[in-house]
């Protein structure tokens, strides 16, 4: 939108036209008692150079941007090829969003169709939609969809090891709809859902929702959860918050997921202080009519030319109203395009290469921490680019000390898991050099002590 400021002479002309002496006179119908009798206590305007300088100074307070970061927990620092920004900055991509008129939206419809195709391939699922807002709401919508499919069942099972903010979002979205949500508790040895907890899956279970790699970085027992879920006739809903993991780990399709969701932020989208991300939503074809969100379909026009449209619109709330699975009538068009550009740039092999780099760094870091510092690796089992360490001190104090060394050491698990007060979740990706990993270990040695 353009900004059209008014000059004093234009203001005078407008006032004269309507026969009013001053702008203040326009407020004369208001009772004098409610009028503010003094100037607002805000600074006067600045010149552009002054404003720039002020914003610069404020910007410097964002120390995180210049620190060495090992933060993960749902938002990951990967390398974003310049090509992504270059392409999405094109005005055709940057501004186009709502494709309700297919005649003039073929470009964006095709771009999002390709996004859907790539995500369906990445997840090895039948159908992917045009994207959701983020992984958390995608997970919530997946539960709502499952609830709509399994009309005779009442219980939703969710792994307690999923991202806690995703859990909060799911609870918010389902609070008036789902009868019961039960958590599958964690095994303190593995950092994954305890096997004994899987006995909770029964004939009243709507779905089993879990995340892999989970909040602690661990990969859940995919085969077992899948088998027990399907035996009970429940729907399997895996959540993938770190999409690059699918470069090396079993896909949701390979474990017979019914609905699979996640966030595509790791696919060429910067951390951006936590957002925007892009919600990924896929499902089996037999459930597609209950799937929320926009869906782009491929068809032919009356001349037989290939073209794209929004399809299966009767699912959506502007037609099904309160019977629709969801009221979403939007998508993250720009971020979905960015993710597609990243995937097209990297290709299958490139994505696999990136994932292997992540695995190797995590492995290196884990081994060094275990052998050279007083910290222990919290859980036995497989992880991807994230893992949890246990320090001989309070996690927040550890992280504060890291901060003084210019390092964002990770996430204190105790915020959502108070019993794990010395646990820190550490993430490493291909952007870290081995020198930076060594720097982390050296700092950890200084703060927490060396190996005994």
């Amino acid at each position, binding site marked *: 939108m353009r900004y059209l400021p008014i000059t004093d002479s234009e203001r005078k002309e407008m006032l004269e036209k309507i026969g009013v002496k001053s702008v203040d006179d326009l407020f004369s119908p208001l009772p004098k008692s409610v009028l503010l009798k003094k100037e607002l206590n805000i600074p006067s305007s600045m010149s552009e150079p002054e404003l720039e300088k002020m914003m610069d100074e404020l910007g410097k307070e964002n120390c995180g941007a210049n620190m060495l970061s090992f933060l993960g927990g749902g938002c990951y620092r990967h390398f974003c090829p310049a090509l992504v920004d270059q392409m999405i900055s094109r005005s055709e991509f940057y501004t186009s969003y709502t494709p309700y008129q297919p005649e003039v939206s073929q470009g964006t419809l095709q771009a999002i169709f390709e996004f859907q195709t790539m995500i369906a391939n990445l997840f090895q699922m039948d159908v992917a939609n045009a994207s959701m807002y983020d992984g958390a709401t995608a997970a919530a919508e997946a539960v709502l969809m499952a609830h709509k499919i399994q009309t005779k069942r009442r219980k939703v099972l969710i792994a307690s090891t999923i991202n806690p903010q995703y859990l909060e979002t799911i609870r918010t979205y389902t609070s008036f709809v789902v009868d019961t949500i039960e958590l599958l508790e964690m095994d303190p040895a593995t950092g994954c859902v305890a096997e004994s907890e899987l006995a909770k899956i029964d004939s009243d279970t709507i779905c089993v929702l879990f995340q892999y790699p989970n909040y602690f970085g661990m990969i859940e027992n995919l085969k077992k959860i899948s088998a027990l879920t399907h035996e009970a006739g429940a729907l399997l809903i895996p959540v993938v918050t770190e999409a690059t993991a699918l470069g090396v780990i079993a896909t949701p399709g390979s474990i017979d997921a019914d609905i699979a969701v996640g966030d595509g932020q790791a696919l060429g989208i910067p951390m951006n202080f936590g957002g925007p991300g892009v919600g990924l939503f896929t499902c089996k074809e037999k459930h597609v009519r209950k799937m929320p969100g926009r869906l782009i379909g491929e068809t032919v026009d009356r001349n037989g030319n290939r073209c794209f449209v929004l399809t299966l*619109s*009767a699912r959506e709330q502007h037609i099904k109203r309160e*019977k629709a699975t969801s009221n979403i009538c939007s998508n993250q068009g720009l971020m979905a395009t960015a993710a597609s550009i990243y995937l097209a740039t990297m290709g299958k092999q490139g994505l696999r290469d990136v994932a292997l780099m992540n695995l190797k760094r995590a492995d290196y870091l884990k081994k060094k921490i275990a052998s050279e510092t007083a910290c222990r690796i919290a859980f036995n089992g497989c992880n991807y680019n994230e893992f949890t360490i246990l320090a001989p001190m309070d996690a927040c104090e550890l992280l504060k000390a890291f901060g003084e060394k210019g390092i964002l050491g990770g996430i204190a698990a105790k915020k959502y898991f108070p019993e794990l007060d010395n646990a820190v979740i550490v993430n490493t990706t291909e952007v870290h050099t081995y020198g930076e990993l060594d720097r982390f270990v050296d700092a950890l040695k200084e703060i927490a002590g060396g190996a005994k």
Partner: protein
Amino acid sequence: MSNYSVPSNLRFSETHEWVEDLGNNKYRIGISDFAAQHVGDITYVELPEINEDVDNESVVCNIETVKSSEDINNQISGTVVTINEMLSENPEIVGADCYGDGWLYEVQSDSDEDFKALMSADEYDKFLDEQDDE
């Protein structure tokens, strides 16, 4: 006489569903000519499941077009015994032959009460006459 086809052997609901008595308290259900003409091009029909218990107040079937989603009101309490499998590939039959091949599903009831409570063909025809001004 309304302008719509109203076969005399069927009974009808105010929401334009027809019911055919197949004998032994088994009934076949579909939508009337009036409904078929008003609903437009049908793209999908969501049918109930076989062995599903249904009652005469519930919505167990839904007809979709590109732009709309119409709930079909079940008229006979009982158990669904058959569904029209043809509709999964050819939903448009419901519009083209609503009293014949476009039937929706069949219910096994334990009485004829629900059937008797419906309008006769004549009553429905009169009902449509009054509707048509809308």
